[in-house]
């Protein structure tokens, strides 16, 4: 690498770490290469170098030490064979060159360091963190700044946004200097002129008009300071000068401003009135106003006008800034002025208004005003953080009224826990009936008219017992000392615990922000943070715990138990995630409990949805299906066949969903409870094969669709035999194709068998657990006829009725 860079100086015969070699000084680094080898034993960028030290004169060894910013240092020993003089000369050469080069790099570092230093001093919290984490070498300083770089940026951003305002005393700060004769000299700087322009826009205009052409720069300013315009606040004789116009200009802009109401369509400055509470409060002003209305005190009027004008200017600049400036300290001056003027502003407005002639606004202006008003309203009622979907729809807002079905739920508190009630019931003695209690109370009440001897109210032993309960250490005073725990902890311990929490929380925050580990960077970061936490635990928490144990023996563990818990939790999480990484993800649902819950909820919701869809999509009368009462992933169904070779058969079946439903590869399995000779029903497993219609299963497929297919396939054997290749029961297909009558015979047998099995539920578990189950009594007791009757009466309720009768459990 050294070959690429320019070598500025090469000093042979230098020892470093007892190796002989050559010291090279390159443009950006200082490097040491061992003799006869290519390896670079030491290489320091100038960025890293803090300073260099040389061995004091008179020492036998001629050395140069380079101290780095991170505290490390490298020492180079100059061993020129020509003697000490030469050695010193070598060292001087190196030293001078490094000295020359270092400042170039230093400045960069310094500015950065200074910035960091400033940030640290401004944030005591950050400083504490820095002390805890960096100085104790839990984190390196780079890592620390990487984490808190954002804060740094923010701080920088804030400081850059300030804008210098006009000082309130900008004019009085211009110190006039007597020139010895009868005059004054004003020293104007560019900044002052800028301020004057800002405060008196009319002067700026005038300046632009006059200066290069009519007057010289100095002449202009002399006139300005002499002018009535400048002095009009004070009473001076009216001099004829160029600034007379300025006053008029100001007046006209002021009038314009009032008419535009500062750009706020809802503000009417003309309406501002001055209401004093009574005579005596602000009386000087109000009196003036009254007497002035006839055109009296010109001084007050002009000063009021000046105030008004000034407040307008302040308001204007504020409005301009409002967009960008959030809160500036430099605005203090402005604000002060504003406050000062605000009071006078409102008071005097009315009078100024009188002078203004009303100009009827044109239609365009009106329209524009309307638009502005609308904008202003929208601005006021719209919030960024509340979505704006309702506002921009021009349609009438169709907000759903809140419909609380069970209002009473809000009104009830928790039910008293049954456990306490029962426990109290256990040791109850004997309870009288309410009537007896009432009777006894009435009897007692009769005696209440008599006086009670005082000894009866409480007897001494009981009083002493009660006192015992209430004295410290008694039954009721247990734990009386407990809440004073904080008093036992000395302040320095408290502070330390605070600091521990601060650092621990910071590290933990970083640690947990890595999860879930979706990218390799995050994983790497998690590993790093885990190590850091371990280091923190060992170097900070453990020593503190030991100390606390020693010095505050009963409380030691309590103080840090929570921190330990926090750290332990993070370790557990880390180890768990590591385990998951090493293991192939065969059990995806176990990676996180949240996901698991999510998936489960999703599946359950999907099942509910399927059920609802089924109810609305599937016509009743042939297939009834219900999720099993024990597990919702298995559904029980029964099919009444209305046509085809299996007509009048009643077949029960179960439908199984996978736990990942609806994300499953194959269609839900449908299994018949009893055997059935059908092309699509496997003769061995009784499974119905729907892969012809549903080769795969996706979220877009629904259960009612597969049931429709089932119904169709059972009722149309012909279709199955002719259209479908590779049927599950090839024998049945062959039989159907060759000997239809034989097939029909078998199917008839199946039908009778199915009806029999439906009514005869033997001890077979599989059958008994099925949701659909028929009782012979339905037919025998005439219930069946009743149901039919009911069905005729109300076609709606037929479904419910059959369900309620069929459902068991």
């Amino acid at each position, binding site marked *: 690498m050294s070959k690429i860079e320019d070598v500025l100086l090469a000093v042979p015969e230098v020892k470093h770490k007892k190796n002989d070699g050559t010291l090279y000084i390159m443009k950006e680094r200082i490097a040491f290469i061992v003799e006869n080898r290519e390896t670079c034993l030491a290489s320091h960028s100038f960025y890293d170098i803090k300073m260099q030290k040389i061995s004091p004169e008179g020492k036998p060894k001629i050395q140069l030490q380079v101290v780095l910013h991170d505290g490390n240092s490298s020492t180079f020993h100059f061993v020129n064979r020509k003697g000490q003089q030469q050695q010193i000369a070598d060292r001087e050469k190196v030293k001078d060159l490094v000295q020359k080069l270092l400042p170039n790099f230093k400045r960069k570092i310094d500015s950065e360091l200074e910035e960091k230093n400033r940030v640290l001093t401004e944030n005591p919290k950050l400083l504490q963190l820095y002390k805890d984490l960096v100085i104790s070498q839990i984190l390196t300083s780079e890592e620390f700044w990487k984490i808190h770089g954002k804060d740094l940026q923010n701080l920088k951003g804030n400081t850059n946004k300030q804008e210098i305002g006009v000082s309130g005393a900008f004019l009085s700060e211009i110190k006039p200097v007597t020139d010895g004769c009868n005059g004054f000299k004003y020293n104007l700087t560019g900044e002052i002129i800028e301020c004057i322009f800002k405060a008196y826009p009319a002067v700026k205009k005038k300046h632009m008009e006059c200066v290069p052409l009519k007057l010289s720069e100095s002449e202009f300013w002399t006139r300005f300071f002499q002018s009535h315009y400048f002095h009009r606040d004070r009473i001076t004789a009216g001099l004829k000068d160029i600034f007379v116009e300025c006053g008029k200009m100001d007046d006209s802009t002021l009038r314009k401003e009032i008419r535009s109401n500062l750009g706020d369509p809802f503000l009417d400055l003309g309406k501002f009135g001055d209401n004093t509470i009574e005579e005596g409060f602000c009386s000087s002003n109000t009196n003036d106003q009254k007497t002035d209305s006839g055109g009296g005190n010109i001084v007050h009027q002009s000063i009021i006008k000046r105030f008004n004008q000034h407040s307008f200017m302040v308001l204007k600049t504020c409005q301009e800034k409002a967009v960008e400036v959030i809160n500036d300290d430099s605005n203090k001056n402005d604000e002060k002025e504003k406050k000062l003027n605000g009071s006078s502003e409102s008071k005097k407005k009315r009078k100024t208004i009188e002078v203004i002639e009303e100009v009827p606004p044109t239609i365009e202006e009106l329209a524009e005003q309307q638009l502005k008003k609308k904008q202003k309203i929208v601005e006021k009622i719209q919030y960024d953080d509340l979505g704006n979907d309702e506002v921009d729809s021009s349609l009438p807002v169709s907000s759903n009224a*809140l419909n*609380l*079905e*069970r209002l009473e*739920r*809000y*009104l*009830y*508190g*928790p*039910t*008293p826990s049954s456990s*306490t009630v029962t426990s*109290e019931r256990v040791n*109850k003695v*004997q*309870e*009288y009936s*309410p*009537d*007896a*209690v*009432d009777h006894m*109370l*009435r009897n*007692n*009440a*009769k005696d*209440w*008219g008599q*006086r*009670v001897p005082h000894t009866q*109210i*409480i*007897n001494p032993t*009981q*009083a002493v017992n*009660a*006192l015992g*309960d*209430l004295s410290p250490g008694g039954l*009721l*005073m247990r*734990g*009386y000392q407990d*809440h004073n725990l904080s008093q036992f902890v000395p302040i320095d311990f408290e502070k330390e615990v605070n600091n521990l929490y601060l650092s621990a929380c910071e590290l933990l925050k970083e640690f947990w922000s890595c999860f*879930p580990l*979706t990218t390799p960077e995050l994983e790497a970061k998690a590993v790093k943070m885990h190590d850091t936490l371990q280091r923190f635990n060992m170097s900070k928490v453990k020593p503190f715990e030991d100390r606390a144990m020693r010095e505050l023996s009963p409380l030691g563990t309590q103080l840090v138990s929570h921190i330990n818990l926090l750290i332990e939790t993070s370790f557990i999480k880390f180890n768990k995630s590591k385990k998951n990484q090493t293991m192939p*993800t065969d059990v*995806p649902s176990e*990676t996180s409990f949240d*996901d698991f*819950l*999510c*998936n489960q*909820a*999703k599946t359950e*919701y*999907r099942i509910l949805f399927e059920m609802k869809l089924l109810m609305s999509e599937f016509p009743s009368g042939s297939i009834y299906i219900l999720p099993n009462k024990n597990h919702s992933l298995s559904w029980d169904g029964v099919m009444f066949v209305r046509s085809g070779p299996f007509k009048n058969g009643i077949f029960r079946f179960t439908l199984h969903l996978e736990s990942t439903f609806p*994300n499953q590869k194959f269609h839900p399995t449908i299994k018949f409870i009893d055997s059935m000779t059908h092309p699509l029903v496997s003769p061995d497993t009784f499974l119905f094969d729907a892969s012809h219609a549903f080769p795969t299963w996706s979220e877009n497929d629904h259960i009612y669709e597969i049931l429709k297919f089932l119904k169709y396939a059972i009722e149309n054997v012909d279709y199955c035999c002719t259209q479908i290749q590779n049927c599950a029961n090839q024998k049945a297909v062959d039989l159907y194709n060759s000997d239809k009558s034989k097939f029909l015979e078998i199917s008839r047998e199946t039908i009778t068998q199915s009806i029999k099995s439906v009514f005869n539920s033997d001890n077979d578990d599989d059958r008994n657990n099925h949701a659909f189950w028929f009782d012979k009594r339905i037919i025998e007791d005439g219930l069946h006829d009743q149901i039919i009757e009911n069905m005729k009466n109300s076609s709606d309720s037929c479904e419910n009725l059959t369900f309620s009768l069929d459902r068991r459990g």
Partner: protein
Amino acid sequence: MNELNADDPSLLVIALDTNPSQSILKRKPNLLTNILNSISAFGNSHLMQKPQNKLAVIGCHHHTSKFLYPSTDKSLEVRQIDGQYEYFTLVEKSIKTNLADMITNAPKVASNNESMLAGCLAMALCYITRIKKSQPPGCNLNTRILVITGSEDSAHQYMTYMNVFFTAQKEKVVIDICALDNTLVLLQQGCDITGGQYLKVPQIEGLLEYLLWIFLPDPAIRSKLALPPPVKVDYRAACFCHRELIDIGFVCSVCLSIFCKFSPICTTCSTVFKVPVPLKPKKKKIKT
């Protein structure tokens, strides 16, 4: 609370649960006499502390709540007995006669009637407000309510209780609870909210001692005494589905109903929720 001044006179309203269906009376109906005696003694002790102190006693029976003292309808003729101050005799006598009246005139207990304690507390608050208003300007009055009951917690009065508690807090009325029999979770909250004292009496026979020790001192000076430490109050919410206390649950974002289990449709306001979507990386894994 720091506005309470120990030098100001105080008004104490005692709300006494006399409902015959409360379990403690069912077991020992004669206890009521004992309780009554203790309360009149306690009330008189309160009056004795400062000449300006005021007292009111409300009886909460199974059908109604009524002021036992000061009685509204008739004035009792009191003369001195045993050298007792007539005022105290009046207090004791009017409490007892009025309660006897109430009990004898009460309709028969139908079944297990709940004591309408919340209503009784509301009455007490109204009374306190009235007295406070009639105070001459510049005079402060420390006010508190002492509830003495052996009933159980009632879920049905939950809302009324809460309204009473927060009104009391706003009016700076301290609510003290003296539970004779059951632990009262709901009323504990009231104590906690208003800064009162909660006590479950270990032995009912020593009631007067407990009352004098714990409830006689004004709240303003209680901080200086060694009183039983405040109980840890359980502020957990009850789920709307089973009325059980839960630490973490699901809250409907529309009507704020609380549920202990996730359900896709809010059963209170019928809002349909989106199904929580699993994280994206997860989805990929499933698909592959």
